């Protein structure tokens, strides 16, 4: 290892980084804002997804058995439903329990004493592993002999699924736009620093430095700006998590937010990596353009 060479390289990077302080601050600020937005956006998307999931997971299929199904037949049907790997649970609700529930639900609205004979069949209440499977599973169950009727909140499921999909798609677009904007701003900023150092680059080319060598300090600068920017953003996000999130949870009791950002460490690493990548790609492109001309 030739430490003199390493020291020269690092001192060049540092010299340029500090000499173009104003531009570097611009680049760092851009990355910070982008990454903070990105982080906030990911959190919101995660929270919305959680709300949707919660809604979906409350969805259940009611399976009504044909009148007069024997207890053993009912048990067999239950076993058959439970056998499907897509089914999370199948809870047996005999007609008596069904009536009891119904009375509870309707109390105060109608005179439940009027319900003298029980109109309800025996039933199963089925929950699913993945709510998306509801149509298929309901269809399959309805074909089981002895099953009279299958109902579930069809519209609600379809809509919830569609909203989830749309959210995911919008999310991807917003993410992509944010990252591209950041890369463009960084590459422009770095282009300014490249321009400020055009004499030095010209001399390097004149004395026979390779393009890779010329590019390297700029890419390192980009990396440094990206990392510093995303660290700044992470600090802001951590502060928001500590100060803002509890208030948000208090204000929105029906939204199932958690006390902390889930997978905080992973998310932080991802954001850091994004910032670094944006810095490297942005500087790589802007120096490349300059070297080719």
């Amino acid at each position: 290892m030739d430490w003199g060479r390493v020291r020269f390289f690092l001192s060049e990077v540092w010299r340029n980084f500090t000499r173009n302080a104003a531009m570097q601050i611009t680049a760092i600020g851009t990355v910070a804002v982008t990454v903070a937005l990105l982080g906030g956006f990911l959190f919101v998307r995660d929270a919305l997804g959680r709300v949707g999931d919660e809604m979906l997971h409350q969805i259940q299929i009611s399976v009504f058995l044909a009148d007069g199904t024997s207890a053993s037949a009912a048990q067999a049907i239950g076993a058959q439903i439970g056998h499907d790997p897509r089914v999370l649970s199948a809870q047996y609700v005999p007609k008596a329990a069904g009536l009891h529930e119904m009375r509870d639900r309707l109390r105060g609205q109608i005179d439940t004493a009027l319900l003298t004979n029980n109109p309800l069949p025996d039933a199963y209440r089925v929950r699913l592993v993945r709510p998306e499977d509801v149509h298929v599973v309901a269809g399959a169950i309805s074909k089981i002999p002895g099953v009279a009727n299958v109902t579930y909140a069809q519209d609600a499921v379809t809509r919830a699924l569609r909203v989830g999909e749309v959210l995911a798609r919008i999310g991807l677009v917003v993410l992509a736009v944010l990252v591209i904007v950041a890369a463009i701003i960084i590459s422009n900023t770095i282009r300014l620093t490249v321009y400020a150092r055009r004499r030095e680059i010209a001399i390097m080319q004149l004395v026979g430095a390779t393009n890779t060598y010329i590019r390297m300090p700029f890419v390192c600068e980009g990396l440094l700006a990206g990392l510093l920017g995303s660290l700044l953003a992470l600090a802001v996000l951590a502060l928001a998590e500590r100060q803002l999130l509890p208030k948000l949870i208090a204000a929105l009791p029906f939204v199932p937010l958690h006390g902390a950002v889930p997978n905080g460490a992973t998310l932080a690493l991802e954001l850091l990596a994004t910032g670094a990548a944006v810095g490297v790609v942005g500087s790589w492109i802007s120096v490349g353009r300059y070297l080719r001309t």
Partner: protein
Amino acid sequence: MTYPNGTRALDDVDLEIAKASFVFLVGHSGTGKSSLLRLIYRETLPTRGQVEVDGIRVDRLRRSRVPQLRRNLGVVFQDFKLLQDKTVWENVAFALQVTGARTRDVMRQVPRVLDLVGLPHKSRMFPTELSGGEQQRTAIARALVNNPKILLCDEPTGNLDPSNTTEIMELLLRINLKGTTVVVATHNQAVVDRMRRRVVRLEDGRVVADEERGFYFGDRMRAADGLG
């Protein structure tokens, strides 16, 4: 050789420069002296024709091989092209450092060339603290630190007073005597006439005169003297 804007900079130039020789390229500004030098260190490519340097076809050189060519060429300019925020030592060492030289070689080569150009005592000074002649000597040291076989000088004394000009020319001669091919583009008549080296005269991109031990206005002077 034609530039993208349509200017024909060089036309039908057929020139051979011998190893270890000293050649002046003379002519008015804009007659193609700089273009000719740029072809040699592949700053530009010929529209047509061939450029060969030390057995290498420069006009066909792959882009990735250009740095290798440049390490075997030293180039010096009228405006010195020194980095203002680096000392003399750092400016000279820069040429080695950015081509990946080992620190050991930097420590050995930089003092050698600073000695050669006569600036060892100014190695810690910045270009702004130096005279024009000293700045040009620094630039020459930088051009030589890679031990090139060829030294190209584009108006090296254009910004210098007569005494500094003489010093620089003597330095270039000394470098030439050590075996380096030296090509000097200049329109300094006094220098050319005093040194009596090979003179290649360009006019409108064409070679109009080429003489060993020539004068700046070689042909015309003789024509005027009735010797032509």
